[in-house]
């Protein structure tokens, strides 16, 4: 699959089934393949894990339950009880990002979370959804979000634009964090793997050690970034529900 020698060749989008609707390019690409694979993996993991819900869970059931409890506790800590109805959404986001990151760790696979188009689409959806929730819940009171309490009214013309910019920067920092981490990590792996070949037997073992260590680190980052993406979504949701 990856014939290119550039460390960035792994991020290339390849059209597999061209689909054009009007001016829209809706082609099925290698990125889509891995998204479908991710959804199938998560579904299989949860469905097979909970196939027979035993009183004393087996290995798969334990893993499925642990992932559930993990997100349930996270939501309880960050959002509280009002967030309960959004649990399916948050859980889906976590599993989708996590399994997508993990699929990307398999050699020759494609990491769709390393594309800003994917992460920004998710972040934008979350941002708009959370804003709509806040407006639906607090109506016009939502606008008080942009005016810090206890600030003299003279400062408002200066502070409100700053607050709005700060609010609008949320989806960017949310998506860039995930995308940049995955992109940087995978590029670094490729670059050091390239050194192994070019340095040969003499000194090639040094980057090899590095690549082994980096692979471990990448697995940690795959989990951590999925976690960070989820916890940020929770915190935004908390802001929308409780409004400072």
């Amino acid at each position: 699959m990856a014939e290119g020698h550039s460390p960035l060749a792994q991020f290339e989008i390849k059209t597999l089934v061209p689909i054009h609707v009007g001016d829209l390019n809706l082609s099925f690409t290698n990125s889509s393949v891995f998204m479908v694979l991710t959804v199938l993996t998560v579904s299989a993991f949860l469905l097979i894990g909970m196939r027979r819900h035993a009183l004393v869970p087996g290995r798969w059931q334990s893993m499925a339950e642990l992932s559930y409890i993990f997100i349930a506790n996270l939501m309880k800590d960050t959002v509280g009880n009002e967030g309960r109805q959004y649990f399916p959404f948050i859980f889906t986001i976590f599993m989708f990002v996590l399994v997508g990151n993990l699929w990307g760790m398999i050699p020759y696979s494609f990491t769709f979370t390393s594309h800003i188009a994917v992460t920004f689409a998710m972040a934008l959806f979350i941002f708009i959804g959370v804003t709509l929730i806040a407006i639906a819940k607090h109506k016009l009171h939502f606008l008080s979000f942009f005016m810090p309490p206890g600030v003299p009214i003279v400062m408002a013309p200066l502070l409100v634009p700053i607050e709005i910019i700060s609010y609008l920067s949320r989806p960017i920092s949310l998506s860039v964090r995930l995308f940049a981490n995955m992109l940087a990590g995978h590029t670094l792996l490729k670059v050091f793997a390239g050194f192994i070949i070019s340095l040969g037997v003499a000194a090639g073992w040094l980057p090899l050690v590095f690549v082994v260590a980096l692979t471990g680190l990448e697995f940690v980052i795959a989990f951590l970034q999925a976690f960070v993406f989820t916890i940020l979504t929770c915190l935004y949701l908390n802001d929308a529900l409780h409004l400072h």
Partner: protein
Amino acid sequence: MAPVDDDRNQGSGDLDAFGRKLEEARQRESSGRIWNAPKDGAPKSALGLAFRVSVELVSALAVGVAIGLGLDYMLGTKPWLLVAFIVLGFAAGVLNVYRMAAGYGYAVGYRKNEAPQSAPKEGEDRGG
């Protein structure tokens, strides 16, 4: 935890003993969580912190530049609103970083994000 409830009607003698043990385990767990997840998800490494600061700064600046360019284009006030919004965007970026550094974790807002600890215990069984 939740699926336990579904099997309660199987009714055998040692189920009660199991229930007691489960309750004890739950007590132990709630005192020191099995998942020691940091509550605010703040990165512990220096590199993670540095990366976060830069992302916060740059993203707010980018929004400021985008708004400035957009308004300039619409109102025809070529460079002036861009200049103003670059300054505002930078201020917003510094504000983001300040909130982060002041121990708000990932929360955005004015008051410290007190985690709603008062949430009732049965929250654990949601949706089970």
